[in-house]
């Protein structure tokens, strides 16, 4: 469905996307992770055809993506998007008129379920409600690819839970590629099936959550027992306290020797380690 070959985007001397190769062959909810400035927004905007890439090629359903030819099957929205200051119901109606594949009933049902007052004007909504409305409008589109850039920004815990429900409901009704960028890793893990990690414009990892659950773990024990094991394992980070060491591994599981404990690594810890934020002694 989506093929990205050596996609590069440069802003002057800054490389926002550095030869990214990625293939998304089938429907699913994909979580795009990366630190601030890692290139997530650039990646999404490029994929949607909102900005041109400077090298490589991106195709969606066989059609080459470019700003002059935004793929009809892609819908991108960023958090804090400005909208016309119209009533919620009117904005949903307008979106339905501008998008041939818009599911108006779904949008109204979701607005009702998440207690969005449809007679309120956009500027009178709270920040969270504005974001929720934008997410609903985007997800009500039946496009084959939906890109949501930090859609839960400004949401409280309950709103985030609502959003996850919305995401799952949307996917259940219209299975397609949903790519969601966020910093709230463990929360999105409840609904996402695949993880894409970008760092400094480069693709660091593309894997399923199940795969990460299986391969990401922490070995803890005495340094003299752990260190010899690390030679054959992909160690993504380590923490040493005195003679004890906690090594964060992303590799096949091993049978631990005596004195070594194996713990599950949270997705957040996995992310922190894999982007190189916790490799200290």
């Amino acid at each position, binding site marked *: 469905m989506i093929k990205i070959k050596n996609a590069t985007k440069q802003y002057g001397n800054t490389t926002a996307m550095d030869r990214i190769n990625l293939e998304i062959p089938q429907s699913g909810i994909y979580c795009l992770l990366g630190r601030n400035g890692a290139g997530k927004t650039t990646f999404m*905007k490029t994929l949607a055809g*909102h*900005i*041109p890439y400077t090298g490589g090629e991106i195709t969606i359903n066989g059609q080459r993506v*470019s*700003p*002059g*030819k*935004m793929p*009809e099957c892609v*819908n991108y*929205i960023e958090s804090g*998007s*400005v*909208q*016309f200051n*119209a009533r919620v119901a009117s*904005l949903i109606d*307008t*979106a339905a*008129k*501008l*998008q*041939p594949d*818009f599911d108006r009933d779904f949008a109204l049902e979701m607005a009702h379920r998440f207690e969005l007052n449809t007679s309120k004007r956009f500027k009178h909504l709270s920040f969270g409600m504005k974001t929720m409305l*934008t997410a609903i*409008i*985007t997800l009500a*589109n039946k496009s084959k690819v939906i890109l949501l850039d930090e859609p839960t920004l400004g949401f409280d815990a309950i709103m985030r839970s609502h959003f996850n429900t919305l995401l799952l409901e949307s996917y259940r009704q219209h299975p397609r590629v949903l790519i969601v960028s966020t910093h709230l890793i463990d929360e999105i893990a409840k609904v996402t099936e695949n993880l894409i990690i970008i760092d400094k414009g480069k693709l660091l990892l593309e894997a399923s959550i199940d795969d990460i659950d299986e391969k990401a773990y922490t070995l803890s024990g005495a340094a003299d027992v752990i260190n010899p094991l690390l030679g054959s394992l992909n160690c993504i980070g380590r923490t040493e306290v005195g003679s004890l060491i906690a090594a964060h591994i992303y590799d096949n599981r091993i049978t631990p020797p005596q004195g070594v404990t194996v713990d599950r690594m949270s997705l957040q810890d996995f992310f922190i380690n894999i982007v190189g934020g916790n490799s200290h002694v």
Partner: protein
Amino acid sequence: MCKTTINLAKTNLRHLQVPYVLTGILAGIIAVQMLVFVILGQAGMDVNFQSLISVGNFLWLLPLLAAIFIPARNFRRVINLGGKRENFFWGSLMAYSVLAAIVSLANIVIFYAIDRPVIRAGHFHPFHPFEPGAFVMSEPGHIGGVANLVEVFGWAGNGMLLAFLQQFALLFLISAFVHTLTAIQVKWYGWVADVALIAIISVFTPIPVLRRALVWFFNLIIFHDVAVLQVAACIVLALGIYMINKPVLARRAI
């Protein structure tokens, strides 16, 4: 024309509150001013040396402001609602056609129904019946009149239909030009265009040969004797200028 494009044109027209309000306020002020003059004239008070600018002229503000607001404000909002650039391109052009037609029609109605028969003939020019082309701004010692661009540009003499078309074509050209100029302001070539425009006006005006070219150009798009030629020139030029938006829009970030 695809339905989505028509819907986009409607969305653009619906979300032009600031241009509508500004145009309404200005036209309202002028209408009230006119009304006061008419009442004073009917009451037999001395309104000599007074000349008015027609309300209809202020309606020109609407397509002009729309051509600024649509690319500068509506574009991003339309895209955020899932609109496509291609539809925005044609939908905006359609919106300008509608606005130019409405404003042109409204001004023609104002000119033929109010400016000419009521205000000038009835209240400002009671002793000198209207003669086509006899437009007089307020000359000392004479009774003033009401200035409407339909007459100032010499379109009134071509009849109602041609005057409507001539005005429509010029408004359409102005809208396309202002839209394009606004859309390119975010890019370096927008600034180059601004400088080029200022240079054209300041350099062309003092040099006789270039001035003649400038006069020829404005004569073609406004004052040309052959109305059909003026209409055709405006529409072709408008479409030509508007086409610049195609690559600009394609590269425009949201």
